[in-house]
């Protein structure tokens, strides 16, 4: 399959690969997908006192499009509030990376990862 240049760029130079400490108060972790489906994304956000996402990291098991989608999302969420981050749509991701129809699920997974990370962060703080 031919990949777009943007997918190749993210794949070859993935941004923000890594891990924050899961237990930290200011970190939200989202893990979505399943090995059975061939992709698993872990997205982490670090949220400042002002409710703005200061930093993000990811690790992804999956095809090039899945890696690129999650790499892109780490760039996009930085500097956004949680609500703004939740407004990122899979269609935006798919469009930015020029994903072919069979790879749309990768962008859906990346959107789900944002939701899961934000939820995790909110749960940590709501339960207080």
């Amino acid at each position: 399959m031919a990949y777009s240049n943007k997918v190749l760029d993210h794949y070859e130079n993935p941004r923000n690969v890594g891990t924050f400490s899961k237990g930290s108060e200011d970190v939200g972790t989202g893990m979505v997908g399943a090995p059975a489906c061939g992709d698993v994304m872990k997205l982490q956000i670090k949220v400042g006192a002002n409710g703005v996402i200061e930093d993000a990291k990811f690790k992804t098991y999956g095809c090039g499009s899945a890696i690129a989608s999650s790499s892109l999302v780490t760039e996009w969420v930085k500097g956004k509030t949680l609500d703004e981050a939740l407004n990122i749509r899979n269609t935006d991701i798919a469009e930015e990376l020029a994903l072919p129809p069979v790879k749309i699920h990768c962008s859906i997974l990346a959107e789900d990862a944002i939701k899961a990370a934000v939820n995790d962060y909110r749960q940590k703080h709501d339960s207080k």
Partner: protein
Amino acid sequence: MTQLKFPIYLDYSATTPVDPRVAEAMIPYLTEHFGNPASRSHSFGWTAEHAVEDARAQVAALVNCDPKEIIWTSGATESDNLAIKGAAQFYKSRGQHIITVKTEHKAVLDTCRELERQGFEVTYLPVLDNGLIDIEAFKAALRPDTILVSVMLVNNEIGVIQDIVQIGDICREKGIVFHVDAAQATGKVHIDLEALKVDLMSFSAHKTYGPKGIGALYIRRKPRVRLEAQMHGGGHERGFRSGTLATHQIVGMGEAFRLAREEMDAENERILGLRNRLWQGLSDIEEVYLNGDLAARVAHNLNVSFNFVEGESLIMAIKELAVSSGSACTSASLEPSYVLRALGRNDELAHSSIRFTIGRFTTEAEIDFAIKLLHEKIGKLRELSPLWEMFKDGVDLNTVEWAAH
């Protein structure tokens, strides 16, 4: 050291290049000797017919049968269709039950599915975790109304060699027609149809350094096997398969099989050396698994799962190598390889497999390059892999509840 040319071709089970000697043999039959082998009234036809019969003898010689038992088809897909549908339809008054194996090529599996739609019953035998058939399970699947058994000789994904001697003996004793898909076997394992109790065998030229679009079907004469033709027309190939013969393709297949017969012993020894070198070079990577039996396997094939690395992203990472992934992620289905699933491989391993197939033109320098590249890229992709991280943290992935989508 000679300069490496990229990408390095390690996908010889998908197809092979036409050997230059084969291409050379074919060319005159496109231009000069263009006659129709069925033309009986002039020398153009006679020349073409002569070439076709020479090629038939060359194919027969590789598998030790009578040339009269070989008919030309467009490839192994057509041979499988003709053999399985043809025999099932001819013998259906005797019974409606067919046995095949879960790890067969789609040309066999899909043909069997079609026969199920026509009212036949098909048993898809499971395999052991090394990819081989359990003979006891096979015996248990036999029924009084079983009319046909189809088992491949060499598997295209994992290269394992099935025991067609024993299966053939059992089928012959019970009067069941036995078909073998040998598309991946020619030039790789010795085939002796005089000794084997095989009734029908499918061949393809392009897996053995011949051209694409040509194949053959062996149809045993003693004891005689009958088939319903699937392609009707001018009655070529004794009515089994109508259509003007593709002389140049046939000449190519004949020459390719002649070379295979002459060179296979030396070639297999060399290729086995390369395969062992590759496996040795890779097996020091952590969490690497060989798929399929190592002993009952053709020299050319190495199918490996690199745990916690997804196959398609790995193929992207090693773009200097032309290999194929057991995982079918390039299609919309997202299904991991059904062959690896049949071996009982878990999801991660089934999604993480790469098939390396080595061939006539593979060099030691290419293998060494592949080993080095894989070490580097596996490391890089594992840094990216949340599954690898969990594994390293001691998490048992089987206990994780995945948010499947």
